[in-house]
Each structure stands twice: as C-alpha cells, then as structure tokens.
C-alpha cells in the first residue's frame, strides 16, 4: 500500500461568534470537530455531507488556507500544522485545490495562458518560451486547444473554465488535489467530461484526491473510499462499495435513501428524515444526529459516539453499532 500523501489527525476548526457592541466572543461554531483520515497516492477519498457539515472547511484547513484550531496535518509525511505562510508556500507545490465556482475562481483580467502559467513562474519552474510550451502542454492535457491561451475567462464556458482551474492546479506537479465540488456548477453533459478528465489524470499521474461533494452519485463514481460528515464530525468512513451497499450509520442510510433515483419503476422505501440539520453553533449533546435519528435511544442523547472500526476497514461513529445489548442487527 502506498504512503499517504495527506494525513489528518483530530483536525478542528472553530469559528468565533461575536456578539454585542464590544464584539465579545459569545461562543464558537465547531465547523470541524475532530476529524481524522488519510489520502494515499492514486486514491480518491470522498468527503460527503450536506451544507454546513464542515466538508469545505476541512478542504481549506488541510491546505492551511484557513488556520486549523487544533489537530495535525501531514503532507507527504511532513507535519505542516505549525508552518508559517512562507513555509506553507513552499509545500503548496505538492498540494493544490480546484474550486467549485469556475466563474469566480479565475482572474478575469488575466488571459487563460497567464492564469495557468502564473504558478510556474511563482515557483520558478519555468519562464519565457519554456513556460509557454509547458502551458500549451497543460492545455492539451486538459482538453483545451493551445490557441485558447490568448483568450480571457469570460470567453470560456463553465466546463472549459473548470478545465482551466484543473490545468492551473496541475501546473506545479502536485501529489494531492483538493477538489471542492468541482462539478456541482456544471450541467450533466459537461460534468461527465470533467469527471472523466479527473479520473484520467489521477490514473496517469498517481494523484491523491480529496474530493468534496454533496452529490452521492458523483461520489459513488469517482471515490475509492468515502467519509460521511455530519455537523463537523465524520460519522462513517468506508470503501465505497461497503458504504453504498451496507451503510452502517443511520445518517448515511438516510442520505442514500433520500437521493432521487432516475428509475421511475423503482419502488423504494424511503427513510425520510424529519426536521432540519441543527445549528453547528449549538449542536445537540451526545451524538449530533440523535435529534433526527430513527434509532436513537436514551444513551445517544448523552454519550458521544467514537469513530470505530465496526467491520474490517469500515469505521462508524454510532453507539448502536457497538457490541452490547443496544446493538442493531447488521444489515445483510
């Protein structure tokens, strides 16, 4: 098994809440509340969850685009948690990000060639003719014509812009790419093009992907392993096959059953969750999910479940998946 390109241990990110005239801190939003995982070379780890679950904050914190409140981050085996901006700058050659919105993540005043070439110059990897040649190769690699280098972002379609974002991330030769909802803003027909490109690049270059998305179908397609987040915590982490065929956490089960399936003949028993996601500023005590969980028992309201291996390679944070009198029967 290859070494992890990214390891995260007990990552936390708390955002302060200020109140009143003096902007005194009145509490904090525990956007990420103790998350651990690893991404290996050539592997896609999917991070899935609904809005506000902290998945994007995790993506930004592992690159230290925002400073984590606690925990450890290891890039290529090196602890970068305490590095300052300059130290981090050097490491970012190895870890890049692709954003969701291909409209706001490209500088409208730079030509496409300059956007993709800028990191090469920043890191002193190439300049002049050499840079132009490498940018042209990158364009070709992501499926853009080399003569598009002279165009500006507004002249590109959404899918082409996302290709530009990918080319920019690839330019410095990263080992890890954090992809934050990279296809969510795209139409279905264009989504397929970008997903295929991402998979091709991964297989060719051995990239590790931390792939963040709310879209379960996309997740099932691109990921090798998937972590499900709810209110700042990972509630389940498993191989995608295990997760989709035998979800162990009640929240995962609900997510899977809620997603609409494009098959009108299929009769599904839906587990429709009642109520909304509670506020991350004031999450429920005990298991964060107990307020909406159909299987919750008295213990769930007071005891914090720990992410544990319930089956080989299949971790879940649920009191009712622990051995004992309260254990739910394992799904077939």
């Amino acid at each position: 098994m290859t070494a992890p390109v990214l390891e995260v241990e007990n990552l936390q990110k708390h955002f302060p809440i200020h109140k009143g005239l003096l902007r005194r801190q009145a509490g904090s939003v525990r956007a990420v509340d103790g998350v651990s995982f690893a991404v290996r070379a050539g592997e896609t780890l999917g991070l899935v969850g609904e809005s506000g679950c902290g998945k994007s904050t995790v993506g930004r914190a592992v690159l230290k685009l925002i400073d984590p409140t606690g925990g450890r981050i290891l890039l290529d085996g090196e602890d970068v948690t305490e590095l300052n901006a300059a130290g981090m700058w050097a490491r970012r050659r190895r870890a890049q990000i692709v954003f969701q919105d291909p409209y706001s993540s490209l500088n409208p005043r730079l030509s496409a060639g300059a956007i993709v070439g800028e990191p090469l110059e920043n890191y002193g990897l190439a300049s002049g003719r050499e840079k132009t040649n490498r940018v042209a190769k990158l364009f070709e690699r992501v499926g853009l014509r080399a003569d598009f280098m002279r165009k500006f972002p507004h002249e590109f379609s959404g899918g082409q812009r996302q290709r530009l974002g990918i080319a920019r991330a690839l330019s410095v030769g990263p080992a890890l790419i954090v992809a934050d909802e990279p296809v969510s803003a795209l139409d279905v027909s264009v989504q397929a093009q970008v997903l295929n490109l991402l998979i091709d690049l991964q297989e060719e270059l051995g990239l590790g992907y931390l792939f963040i998305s709310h879209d379960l179908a996309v997740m099932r397609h691109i990921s090798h392993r998937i972590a499900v987040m709810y209110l700042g915590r990972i509630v389940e982490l498993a191989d995608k096959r295990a997760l989709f065929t035998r979800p162990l956490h009640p929240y995962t089960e609900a997510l899977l059953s809620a997603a609409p399936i494009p098959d009108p003949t299929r009769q599904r028993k839906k587990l429709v969750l009642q109520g909304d996601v509670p506020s991350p500023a004031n999450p429920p005590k005990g298991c964060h999910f107990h307020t909406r969980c159909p299987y919750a028992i008295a213990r769930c309201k007071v005891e914090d479940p720990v992410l544990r291996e319930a089956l080989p390679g299949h971790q879940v944070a649920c009191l009712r998946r622990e051995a004992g009198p309260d254990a739910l029967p394992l799904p077939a």
Partner: protein
Amino acid sequence: MQRNQPAPLLEVDNLHCHFFTLDGVVRAVDGVSFSLQRGETLGIVGESGCGKSVTAMSILRLLPKGLGRIVDGSVKLEGRELTTLGDADMRSMRGHQVSMIFQEPMTSLNPVLTVGLQIAENVERHLNVGRKAAMERAVEMLRLVKIPDAERRVNDYPHQFSGGMRQRVMIAIALSCNPQVLIADEPTTALDVTIQAQILDLMLELKQKLNTAIIMITHDLGVIAETAQRVLVMYAGRKVEEAPVVELFQRPLHPYTQGLMRARPRLDVEAEEQGRRPRLQEIQGMVPALNRPILGCAFAPRCGYATDRCRSEAPGLTEPVPGHLVACWEATKIAGMGHA
C-alpha cells in the same frame, strides 16, 4: 396524440419567446407545444439555457419587460387565451388559477413581511376575504405544509425559517387559493438531499389531496423519475422528446435524452469494470448559442447519429410509438436498434 382524452387544462401551442439583447435576438423558446391534463404532473427536463424556465415564465407572463417577450404562439388555460390577456386580468390569474414556486427560497420571500402576511396577501387579493379570514387561512396553509406550531410561526419572518421551511412557506403561498396549475421551477435544487426528499414528499402528498396539476421543471432526472407522469425533454429552446415517464426512461429515443441518461453516474448501480472506474459517456461539445439561427437539428453537432440531413433540415415531431413524441430524423432507426 391526445386521443380519447378530455380537453386539456392548459395548452401551450407553438410558443416562441425571444430576448432582445445587445448580442442579437436570443431564441430562448423556439416553437414549443404541450398540454397539461387536470391533476397531472408534467416534468420538463433539460440543461441550463434550454428554455425550460422561460417556458414557465411565459405561461405566467413574467418575462422581464422590454427584454423578453412572447413573439408567437398561444397559451390557453381552460380554453382562455393568456398571451393577449390584459394586465389586470393576468394579475388576478397569477397566484390564483396558476401559481409558481421558484428555486431560491431565500430570495423569493419578502424579508420584511411575516410569512403569515405573505400568505394572507394572496388570499385577500384573490378570494375577496378580510384580513382576519385570510390570516386564518394562512395558519391553515402552514399546517397543511407541516410547519410545526403554525399558530405561532405565522407571525415569524422569513429569516427565522430554514431553507426547507422557507420552501414550505412558498408552497403554502402558491397553494393558498387552490390553483389549478402549480408551476415548480427547480423547487428542490437549492436544498440538501434529506430536505429535498421532505419537500418532494410534501408536494406529492398535497397534489393527491388537492388535485392540482403540476409542471415540474428540473435538470435532475432523478427528481423527474420520482414525481412526473409525463416528461418533456428540451434542448436549445425546442422540445426534442415527450413521453410517459416509464416509457421515456425505458426507451429514450432522442440521442440527447439517451446522452443525458448515460452521462450521469448512477447511485443505485455499482459501476466498476475489472476493479476500475469506467468512463462516463460524455456528450461531446456544448450547447449552441441561441442568438444565431440554428440550421437543422440543434443537437446535430454533438450527435453520433447525425447525417447531412440533420445538419440542414430541422426535424419535426413524429410519434414512432403511440404517446411517444420525438424530433429526430434517425428516431425510427434508433428505435429499431432496441436501445441498450
């Protein structure tokens, strides 16, 4: 097409909507016809810019004034022509006989009015009742859309509700005067998947209860499969296919519909070939610009079946299978191949 069927509730015939922009005339809707029966759910599916929302907006005559307008065609509700109706008559129609809910539950409510007032406003205007009766109706509607503690919540403002709850309020407003037609434009797209399931459940339940006909506009084939009885597929301002929902999913005839269905990864099927992730079937290229005339079939440049005829002559709708319409020169051939 509509053999042995009662007169349709809503009939859209040869609708053309153009937008007059600095870049020329954009043919957003380019000759679309369909009908809607009482109590039926009609799905309209397509990607951004295909004209599905503009079609909906033009039924209610909500196109931005001075920019877009209906240039040809007719929209009839119970035989009454809407495209030529006076502004006052149109206003008394909107929110009464025909209502609409929008994608963005955040921006489609008035932030400075309580939700109760926003429901009551519609009721007072159309049902000719006083404030007190209208507020009672508002509470009743909030209960109907399952907002807990409705008597108290009726006095709350939109910002005090979550996204899913706001969409419930929108539905309450839209249904407050028992409309015959409810147009839902991507009603769950902005919502999380567990909330989406709640709202779709609610809409289907209310439809059963109130027998409202629904036009469900979405880009999501999953939502279509779970809600619609009949489906219309749009591409570049034109209707390319129309069929009952099961028929459409089992036997899509238009290459674009087939492409859409294959391009989307499946949630319910493990897609692996010898342990590797298979390639998704892309639809090559992109949607044509609508501000230039499209010669022939709009999908031809992206279509694997396209012939010279497709590139020069626009295909009309044919009915190779009863009840299943398709606009494709090669449809008979494609149907004969017994689609995979």
